[in-house]
């Protein structure tokens, strides 16, 4: 097939030469299977009737996909109610995260809210304090937007070095879904924002009553009060029945189980924007209100949980995203950042959504040091880990967008490593 990656006049083969060990036999091991189901035999599922319609009124993934699940790292947190589970990025493709696989971050467990008892209060520096039911929220004009949501602490365990072996754990605090909701501007207009209002406090109805201060300019620009994800109502883990959507900004601000919006003339300095979600620098001082998520990318396959099983034609696949806009380009390196080539962006390239990239290669069994580097439409280039540490030190926990390296070994196994 033609080398579609060849946009810079560089052939796939010549690109690989540096890292390849010439002459390795390309063998594709056959997948194990039950011979009675394989041709020329005819398996049971071809002879007998299967389940009829509505036997599965809410469809689930195949039982053979039971390993495609969120996972947590129990030593990270003291309890599962204030903890995180990670999206299995290595098992997914495209840009939309299935609703049930979107990572979870709760501060007081999942609030189970009866939609009949849901209320959203808007008050403070407004002309008229208002309260909305869910049915009323749904009557407003609505929009659909595809956006990534990344926890500011995504990759936070990797500041001091390669620690967790799998992109689910190193990068799995990100997801991307289509939201349906009311533009916050429309809701606030209903209450009438007073000119003195500069900040908005968003509060959740969970047992942490999570709060964040959002600048009014952002609230009026592109935020939503969303009640649907991927067409259906929000999952309880994602804030059913309504959550804030704050495009491009750190996930903690996307308050779930939203119960109250209060307009004020100054930020609140809530716990989640002072004690947490502030970035401690080497000086001992900390950056605050670091809202925007910097451009970032990761190769999802191959990766430690998704080793290479076959030599020959291989698709390297990954995700890139930026809180500042669209992804303009993704570069991929097979040699630890010595040489780079442009990856192919496939599918929709949307403003502040994840973008899928592919780089095709012939893997002959040579060791690889895989990296990806995102560049967004503002010209921001995802930095290497050393460059990032030079500015930030290693204590900031949040906003680690350094370039990830995967070491592909001769047997196809993959390890999370750091390189010079």
């Amino acid at each position, binding site marked *: 097939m033609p080398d579609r990656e060849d946009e810079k006049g560089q052939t796939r083969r010549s690109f690989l030469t540096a890292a390849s060990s010439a002459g390795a036999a390309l063998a594709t091991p056959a997948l194990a299977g039950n011979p009675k189901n394989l041709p020329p035999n005819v398996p049971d599922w071809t002879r007998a009737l299967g389940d009829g319609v509505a036997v599965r009124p809410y469809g689930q993934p195949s039982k053979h996909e039971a390993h495609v699940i969120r996972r947590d790292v129990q030593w990270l947190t*003291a309890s599962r109610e204030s903890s995180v589970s990670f999206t299995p990025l290595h098992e997914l493709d495209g840009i939309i995260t299935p609703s049930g696989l979107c990572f979870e971050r709760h501060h007081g467990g999942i609030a189970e809210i009866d939609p009949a008892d849901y209320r959203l209060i808007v008050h403070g520096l407004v002309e008229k304090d208002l309260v909305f039911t869910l049915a009323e929220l749904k009557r407003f004009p609505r929009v659909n937007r595809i956006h990534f949501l990344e926890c500011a602490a995504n990759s936070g365990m990797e500041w001091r070095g390669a620690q967790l072996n799998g992109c689910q754990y190193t990068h799995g605090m990100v997801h991307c879904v289509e939201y349906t909701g009311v533009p916050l501007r429309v809701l606030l207009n209903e209450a009438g924002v007073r000119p003195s209002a500069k900040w908005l406090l968003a509060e959740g109805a969970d047992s942490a009553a999570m709060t964040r201060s959002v600048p009014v300019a952002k609230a009026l620009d592109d935020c939503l009060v969303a009640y649907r994800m991927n067409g259906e109502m929000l999952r309880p883990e994602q804030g059913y029945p309504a959550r804030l959507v704050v495009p491009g900004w750190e996930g903690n601000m996307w308050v779930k189980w939203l119960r109250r919006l209060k307009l004020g003339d100054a930020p609140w300095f809530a716990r989640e924007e002072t004690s947490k979600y502030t970035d401690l620098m080497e000086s*001992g001082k900390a950056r605050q209100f670091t809202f925007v998520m910097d451009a970032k990318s990761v190769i999802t396959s191959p990766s430690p949980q998704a080793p290479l099983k076959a030599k020959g034609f291989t698709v390297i696949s990954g995700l890139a995203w930026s809180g500042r806009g669209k992804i303009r380009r993704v570069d991929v390196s097979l040699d630890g950042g010595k040489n*780079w080539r442009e990856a192919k962006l496939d599918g929709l390239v949307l403003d502040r959504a994840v973008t899928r990239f592919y780089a095709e290669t012939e893997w002959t069994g040579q060791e690889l040091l895989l990296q990806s580097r995102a560049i967004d439409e503002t010209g921001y280039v995802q930095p290497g880990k050393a460059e990032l540490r030079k500015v930030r030190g290693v204590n900031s926990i949040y906003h680690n967008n350094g370039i990830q390296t995967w070491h592909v070994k001769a047997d196809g196994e993959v390890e999370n490593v750091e390189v010079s």
Partner: protein
Amino acid sequence: MSKCLSALAVLLALAGAATAAERKLDIGRAATPAEIAGWDIDVRADGQGLPPGKGSVKDGEEVYMGKCAACHGEFGESAGRWPMVAGGQGSLKSDDPVKTVGSYFAHLATVIDYVRRAMPFGDAQSLTNDELYAVVAYMLYLNDIVDEKFVLSKETFAGVKMPNAAGFYDDDRETAERPFWAAPCMTNCKADVKITGRARVIDVTPDDKSARKGVD
């Protein structure tokens, strides 16, 4: 003149259109003061929203030992993996920064607001205002910010000086990290590449065989 007037008419028409787009839709109803009062629990950094009531260090010790110490430790040192609430002062530049009420919180209101909305963990919004003030006073005492006779209230709030009040500055990435907006190197970017660290050496990844599946 007539040209000016017609231009003005166009502007007014546009303004009218904008107003129509932003017109009120008459959805929802007025929230009553009682409804708002039940949920309006935030306390802002400048003290706006502080509830009535007061609490002493002494009373706070009793609340703390009964409702907080099991997780946060008798001296705020943490029991297990729960957050430390005391100590850590002077550690922020070290390899092991410890963020507590005394070492990191810039605003007293943050502690009051957070305890009021989220603590005790699993029994949120159960403290009385007096218990709230008392337990925060006790945490200030554990951090040597107040003495044992201190009583916290709306009136004494402004007199408390948080040690790390000057420890924060607003996001400066767009200037401090300007070099990240530069065209990157594409070929021969490094002389040599060596592996300097491996996750398997540290070996803290959860062991779940089902998490690993080959690329078919």
